């Protein structure tokens, strides 16, 4: 699977715009400043998926991409160690981090994920002029690799390379941090980069 530098830039820009909106909504919900990294686009051999995320037990909120690109891929909000419970605490007005995620915590995380990813897709839909919507959220607490691997296999597509768009989010004091990971199939990625390229390129001289 090969993409030109221009196409990769377009995909980074897509991630950048979406993640900026998602980070802003998270800032508002948690009432603290959330910063984000420069987006990365990585093309990983399927055998090396473990290098994205490995054996650690993680909390993730998963979404299927719906709308004009049905079943085009998945969006994942990944909480770093301890960030899930701290986020749930802020949302529910609770304290103490030494407990498993209860029903209230889980529902708070689903809602945080839902608002963030809806905001991501809202902003990028406006930009691209196509409608992209998230499926209802699904919370997974499991071995990171097992979740990611199952998402890839779930597509039922026989791919040797996986493209992952990734951006890291962190609060100023680093107590809340995580990643937005986006797994889209190749036709969807090409379509997004194509629309963006034509938006970014100067109009032809008449």
């Amino acid at each position, binding site marked *: 699977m090969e993409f030109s530098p221009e196409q990769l830039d377009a995909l980074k820009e897509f991630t950048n715009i979406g993640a900026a909106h998602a980070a802003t909504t998270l800032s508002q919900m948690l009432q603290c400043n959330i910063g984000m990294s420069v987006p990365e686009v990585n093309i990983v051999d*399927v*055998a*090396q*998926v*473990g290098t994205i995320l*490995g*054996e650690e*037990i993680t909390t993730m909120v*998963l979404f*299927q991409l719906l709308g004009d690109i049905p*079943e085009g891929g998945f969006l994942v909000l990944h909480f770093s160690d301890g960030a899930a419970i701290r986020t749930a605490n802020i949302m529910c007005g609770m304290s103490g981090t030494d407990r498993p995620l209860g029903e209230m915590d889980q529902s708070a995380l689903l809602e945080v994920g839902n608002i963030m990813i809806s905001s991501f897709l809202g902003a990028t839909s406006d930009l691209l002029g196509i409608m992209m919507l998230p*499926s*209802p959220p*699904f919370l*997974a*607490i*499991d*071995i*990171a*690799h*097992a*979740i*990611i*691997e*199952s*998402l*890839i*296999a*779930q597509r*039922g597509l*026989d791919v*040797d390379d996986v493209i992952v768009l990734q951006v890291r989010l962190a609060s100023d004091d680093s107590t809340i941090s995580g990643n937005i990971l986006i797994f889209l199939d190749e036709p969807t990625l090409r379509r997004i980069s194509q629309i963006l390229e034509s938006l970014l390129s100067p109009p032809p001289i008449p």
Partner: protein
Amino acid sequence: MPGPDEPTVIVGIGEFYAGRNPMSSIGLGSCIGLVIYDKDKPLGALAHIMLPDSQGRSERPAKYADTAVKFLVKELNMLGCRSSSLAAKICGGASMFQAFSGNLNIGERNVEAIRFHLKELNIPIIAEDVGGIVGRTIVYNPAENGKVSIKTADGTKKII
């Protein structure tokens, strides 16, 4: 014979290893860790299988149930194992996201395909730990007679 310090080979999606070293697949979700081992020798193989059917593709044979079974047997034959002393253990095939549309039940289909292809080659399944909704990490050490240790996300550990 490998000592306890022999490095563990990590087998990623669609990969395999055959030999004497300990081998491991980290975070099996709907994928399957197929162990085929020699009942008489400290030799065995592990494939990290992702999909049930290769649909005729020949590259990455360890990625598909149909090609992986035959391929592991061939690799073990080349290392000097007789097909009649081989036995199998299957781990994985969880169904993690029943909620999503287009759920293809890949985990379950992987398990069925592997059972079918093992039967075709008359390789008995000695034990399995399949299905469920949680991921697994498995370690197999040929020096320990086909013992496979399994660790799940909820902290359960078991040996099959």
